[in-house]
């Protein structure tokens, strides 16, 4: 139920993912149920030990860590995408649920949106 925000853009080199996270936080701030799905190159958000200081950017992982505090219901990652990008459970930040991104998953939500 509620809205699924999908992040399929990489963590760095584009702002689309950050703007997707802003959408999710905004829904949560207005007490609207919202979950996040990372798929495709978007699963690069979930890798541990990100250090973007050298490219003068803030860590997206830190932003994402605030998700439960803001009231985001679930943070999910597509299993097949994680495999393709060489990300196994041990590489991943805490609090992420592995799922299969398919029609059945989408049908659990009233609305689904990308930021770009």
């Amino acid at each position, binding site marked *: 139920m509620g*809205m699924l925000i999908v992040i399929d853009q990489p963590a760095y080199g584009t*702002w689309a993912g950050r*703007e997707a996270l*802003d959408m999710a936080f905004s829904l949560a701030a207005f007490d609207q149920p919202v979950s996040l799905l990372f798929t495709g190159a978007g699963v690069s958000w979930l890798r541990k030990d990100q250090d973007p200081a050298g490219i003068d950017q803030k860590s997206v992982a830190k932003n994402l860590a605030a998700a439960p505090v803001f009231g985001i219901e679930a943070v999910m990652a597509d299993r097949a995408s994680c495999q393709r990008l060489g990300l196994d459970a041990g590489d991943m930040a805490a609090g992420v649920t592995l799922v299969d991104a398919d029609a059945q998953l989408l049908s659990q939500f009233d609305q689904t*949106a*990308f930021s*770009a």
Partner: protein
Amino acid sequence: MTDTDQHSFTLVITGAPYSSQAPQTALSFARAAVAARHRIDRVFLYGDGVHLASALVTPPSDETHWPNAWARFLTDHKVAGIACIASALRRGLVDEGEQKRYELTASNLLSPFSIAGLGEWVEGTVKSTRTLYFHGG
């Protein structure tokens, strides 16, 4: 559903004019929706979509002026056109209020667009029958 049912749409445009087809696809959709007696609740510009609300866009005279075409639609049908403030400020789109606040040399928001927060989008997703997104290619 019968033909007499009136529905409302929130249209979210995230693709910029002249680098994507998003604003024109959205405008064609909006015109068709209004012609079918539905209502456009609001148009929300997000990410690169905020460039549609720039008063400084100046395409060659033989190309469609998408910001002006959209401004005319919004005025004719009394539809609110809102650019996300965070997206807009990052990309150099400001109204007079933000110009003063940040002590900038100019403002460039095209009337009747306004600048506001993501709350306007959230409200659209709750109130409208459908919220549709027009992304870049």
